[in-house]
């Protein structure tokens, strides 16, 4: 038993800080079996990442509290408080809906619900990506003083975005009621779709947050790219408005798939298989990449701050 797996104390504290293989060879030369070398590093990283995530989930009180405080702080002393999120989103949706239905020559009853749902979903997706970049950098004071599980700060930014989206969903509800959009069992697919979006956002946050702690140009780069992606994703426009070729290109846009799986159920449609497979495939592949990556660099993040 050269490297024990991290064990958990009742207090939720990691008991055993997984040492590096090199140090262990020096510290306990006898315990090291030669065959262990080949597979240890990878499984070590995986177990490190998994241990961190398990502890992070257990410390849910901390990131739930931090996320809700983040929002409360932003709107403190304002009369309607965090409902400014809803209000400003409502104004944006109304303005866009009225203007662009004219530009595109579409009926308001058709275009406004479409753009309202898309903008709210885009807010969630881009929020997860952009806030994921700054998850660790913004938490420097906490990370340097408290030995909390590192993923807590990514979960905090994800939860903050979920809270914001919760306020914005009111807009979707209002629009659906106003335009008397039918609700059926298919609409319930919206919920698993949102879970898929958020879980995708969490792996992106772990990846981008870690990279951004080391390379401070990444948050800006990502923010600029996301601005461009906004125009390349069917948020404001409808894929129907594009040529067949361009529609084919859209199939390779991961953000288009994420938006589609949550949007289509609200219009009473089952999302296209292509979009479901794309979004879920991204989820699986993303996590498979991020777990060893995060396990490898988790310990370094605090040194980069």
């Amino acid at each position, binding site marked *: 038993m050269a490297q024990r797996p991290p064990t958990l104390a009742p207090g939720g504290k990691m008991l055993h800080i997984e*040492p590096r293989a*090199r140090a262990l060879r020096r510290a306990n030369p006898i315990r090291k079996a030669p065959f262990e070398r080949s597979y240890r590093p990878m499984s070590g990283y995986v177990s490190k990442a998994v241990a961190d995530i398990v502890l992070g989930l257990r410390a849910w*009180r901390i990131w739930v509290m931090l996320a809700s405080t983040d929002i409360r702080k932003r709107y403190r002393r304002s009369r309607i408080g965090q409902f400014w999120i809803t209000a400003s989103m409502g104004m944006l949706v109304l303005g866009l809906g009225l203007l662009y239905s004219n530009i595109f020559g579409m009926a308001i009853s058709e275009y406004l619900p479409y753009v309202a749902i898309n903008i709210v979903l885009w807010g969630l997706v881009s929020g997860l990506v952009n806030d994921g970049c700054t998850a660790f950098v913004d938490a420097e004071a906490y990370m340097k003083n408290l030995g909390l599980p590192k993923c807590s700060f990514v979960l905090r930014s994800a939860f903050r975005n979920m809270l914001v989206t919760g306020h914005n969903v009111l807009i979707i509800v209002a629009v659906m009621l106003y335009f008397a959009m039918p609700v059926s069992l298919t609409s319930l697919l919206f919920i698993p779709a949102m879970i898929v979006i958020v879980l995708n956002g969490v792996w992106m946050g772990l990846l981008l947050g870690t990279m951004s702690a080391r390379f401070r140009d990444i948050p800006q*780069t990502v923010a600029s790219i996301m601005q461009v992606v906004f125009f390349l994703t069917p948020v404001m426009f409808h894929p129907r408005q594009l040529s067949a070729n361009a529609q084919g290109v859209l199939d390779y846009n991961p953000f288009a798939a994420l938006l589609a799986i949550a949007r289509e159920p609200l219009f009473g449609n089952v999302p296209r298989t292509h979009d479901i497979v794309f979004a879920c495939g991204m989820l699986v592949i993303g996590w498979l990449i991020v777990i060893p990556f995060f396990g490898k660099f988790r310990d370094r993040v605090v*040194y*980069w701050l």
Partner: protein
Amino acid sequence: MPSIELVNVTVDIPVYNARGRSLKTMVFERAIGGAMQARERGDIVVIRALENVTASFASGDRIGLIGHNGAGKTTLLRVMSGVYQPTTGAARIVGQTGTLTDLMAGMDPEATGYENIVYRGILLGRSYAEAKAHIPEIEAFSELGAYLDLPIRTYSSGMLLRLAFAITTGVRPPILLMDEMISAGDAGFVEKASQRLHDVISSASILVISSHVQNVIQEFCNRVLWLEHGKVVMDGKPDEVLAAYHGHPGSNG
């Protein structure tokens, strides 16, 4: 049974400047290579904060960390609290650690005293209900009365300290880590606060305190670790280590 085991703990802290952190540098470094690489690499200064520190602490140990500024005391505390993972070597910490260092961490100036009691309580590992249950006790101890209903930005620094002190010393971690003795605030509060501090310290199974004040070390510790340039110079009984520390050239005491 709480314990701390450090085996050859080395901590290297890289210090990046704007260039060292930029992705562009890294990309061009790959593209250009060679001599340029060496020059670019030079931008990253690596500080060896701890070098091959080996020690084990068991229940009942009261350890004082001494050494000059930059000797690695705070880094060692951060290794023990799980903030820093050793670059090489292993640190095994059994039991929950608590720090009495940054009293204000996690306090929101716009939130009221009551809200901050809950925020800070949760950060210290309590549940919402537990944090709320501590309110009466903190109310009584801090003697802030009606002020607890006001945002803490309206507090004087003495009041802020009272509140932070009352909240933080409410936890009783089995492993207590302290960076310098925390000061107890204004005169009327000192007596009460130092009594409370003694309670926290005596209820801890392991105490690690870094301090420049000899009296603190002599009062609380039964073992002293003297660090210099990240290495352990001496580890032993307080009297012996303090005598050697004060006797060695370059000591300021």
